[in-house]
């Protein structure tokens, strides 16, 4: 039971709650992190010998707090540290401690820790890096790899972020209900940013960045365990599970993007889909819709369709219309146009995206989608122009390659002239 792998997993799953509680005691990120490190070292020595404690998180908080206090004493008066045997004897103390640390304490502690990371003074990239380092406990090297920057650069980014937080005024009193829900909303947005850092990675970058998706899912699960009745957190977790479920099918062997409708759906992860669908059902019961729930419901409709042609585009169109009201954005409208192209045809879809040109003119996907509609309407010269523009604006090789597939198809169609519609595969 107490093999190293088990202890490792137990330590990393206890980390957010333990560091969060230690932050409440010490009100300083570095001290809280060091205290947790000390507690982990002692756990590695102790647990194999004495068996794991009943409540590993409470043990780590208790031992971490004492270790940090001892360190202060040691440096000031050179007092001796207690022996590890003494620590193993704290079973009774630990039980009392676990009782006092009820769920509501954990809730606000963890929320505060995550909230500290998404402080508005920090740019998004620093927020994510800080959350991955402090809450998830990823090493600087791991985070640097995921962001494709050097370790030194990432170290600097995290140090700078911590410096800004130390100067900012982080409130340590328990939040009121309105403040709590505001914090939860910013934290949810940050978790989704972490997810998208992993999800938007192109084929070649996938192996390094996909762990970010798993980490975001883990954080959302942690939030949901603490805030069990929040439909938007259910929606967020469902959305990420349903998107991540397609991971194996999203890129071909060459690392090129495979469109949703061309994906091999047998490679979708059924377990994640089952969990995502169950969470969507749970959330809908609350009748308190929000953007994550609507996006999850859209992903759920894709997940429910056994074949691309079984997709309920009518319903997806309605859901995107809802999302446009909740969270108006040209990208949402662009996405909606795809559903419109399926239900009302390419001309209706093109009419919907043309007015977005001013806002999305520098977004590669706008030109890609527009090009696809033009192509379907037989306006080949304009389609080619749109695809060329999309390739010029693409952020990654995989994005450019994806647009090139359209261009290749266009060229083939041209070559096969005089034979319109018949050329598709």
């Amino acid at each position: 039971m107490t093999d190293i792998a088990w202890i490792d997993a137990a330590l990393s799953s206890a980390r957010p709650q333990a560091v969060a509680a230690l932050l409440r005691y010490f009100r300083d990120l570095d001290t809280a992190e060091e205290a947790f490190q000390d507690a982990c070292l002692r756990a590695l020595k102790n647990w194999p010998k004495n068996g794991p404690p009943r409540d590993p998180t409470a043990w780590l908080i208790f031992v971490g707090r004492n270790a940090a206090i001892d360190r202060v004493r040691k440096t000031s008066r050179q007092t001796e540290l207690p022996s590890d045997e003494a620590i193993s004897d704290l079973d009774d103390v630990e039980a009392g401690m676990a009782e006092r640390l009820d769920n509501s304490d954990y809730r606000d502690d963890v929320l505060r820790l995550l909230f500290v990371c998404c402080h508005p003074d920090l740019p998004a990239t620093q927020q994510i890096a800080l959350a991955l380092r402090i809450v998830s406990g990823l090493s600087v090297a791991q985070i640097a790899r995921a962001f494709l920057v050097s370790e030194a650069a990432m170290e600097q980014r995290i140090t700078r972020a911590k410096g800004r937080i130390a100067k900012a005024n982080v409130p340590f009193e328990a939040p009121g209900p309105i403040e709590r829900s505001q914090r939860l909303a910013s934290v949810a947005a940050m978790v989704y940013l972490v997810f998208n850092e992993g999800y938007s990675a192109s084929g070649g970058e996938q192996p390094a960045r996909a762990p970010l998706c798993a980490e975001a899912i883990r954080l959302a699960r942690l939030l949901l365990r603490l805030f069990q009745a929040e439909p938007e957190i259910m929606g967020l977790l469902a959305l990420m599970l349903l998107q991540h479920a397609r991971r194996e099918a999203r890129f071909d062997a060459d690392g090129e993007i495979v469109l949703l409708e061309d994906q091999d759906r047998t490679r979708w992860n059924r377990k994640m889909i089952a969990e995502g669908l169950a969470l969507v059902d749970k959330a809908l019961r609350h009748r308190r819709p929000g953007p994550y729930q609507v996006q999850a419901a859209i992903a759920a409709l894709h997940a429910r369709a056994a074949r691309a042609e079984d997709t309920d585009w009518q319903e997806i169109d309605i859901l995107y219309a809802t999302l446009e009201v909740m969270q108006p954005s040209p990208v949402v409208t662009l996405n909606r146009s795809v559903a419109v192209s399926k239900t009302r045809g390419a001309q209706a879809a093109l009419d919907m995206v043309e007015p977005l040109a001013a806002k999305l003119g520098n977004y590669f996907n706008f030109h890609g989608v527009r090009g696809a509609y033009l192509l379907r309407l037989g306006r080949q010269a304009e389609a080619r122009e749109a695809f060329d523009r999309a390739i010029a604006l693409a952020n990654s090789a995989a994005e450019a390659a994806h647009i090139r597939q359209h261009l290749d198809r266009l060229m083939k169609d041209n070559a096969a002239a005089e034979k319109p519609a018949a050329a598709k595969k």
Partner: protein
Amino acid sequence: MLYTILCYNQEEVVGAWTKEEDDACMVRLKAVQDDLVKQGKLGPVARLLPTTAATTLRKGSDDPIVIDGPFAETKEQLLGFYMVDVASLDEALDIARDLAVANPGVGSYEIRPVQLFFPNGNT
């Protein structure tokens, strides 16, 4: 005599396993199950989704309360279970409500989706 063997562990820890660790564990378990199938001793086997996907119906009033999350009371014990094949959570909750009418009083039903189900072992 029929027995059920109920599996308990920390879900955060099991959930943190890598796919390789999880697969390796499933292979080891399958070997045990295969043996039991040969001996004709194995009935249905199920792996449940995380408790974050659970909903609980608490009895004790005419209109039972639906709570998000798993059953959390420690004073009550697990006395039985049903497995139902339904289209939605609402349908499962309706069934639980019917059960509550048939067996009124205190107690709860936790409705937890199933991740994997093998009617006759993992074979």
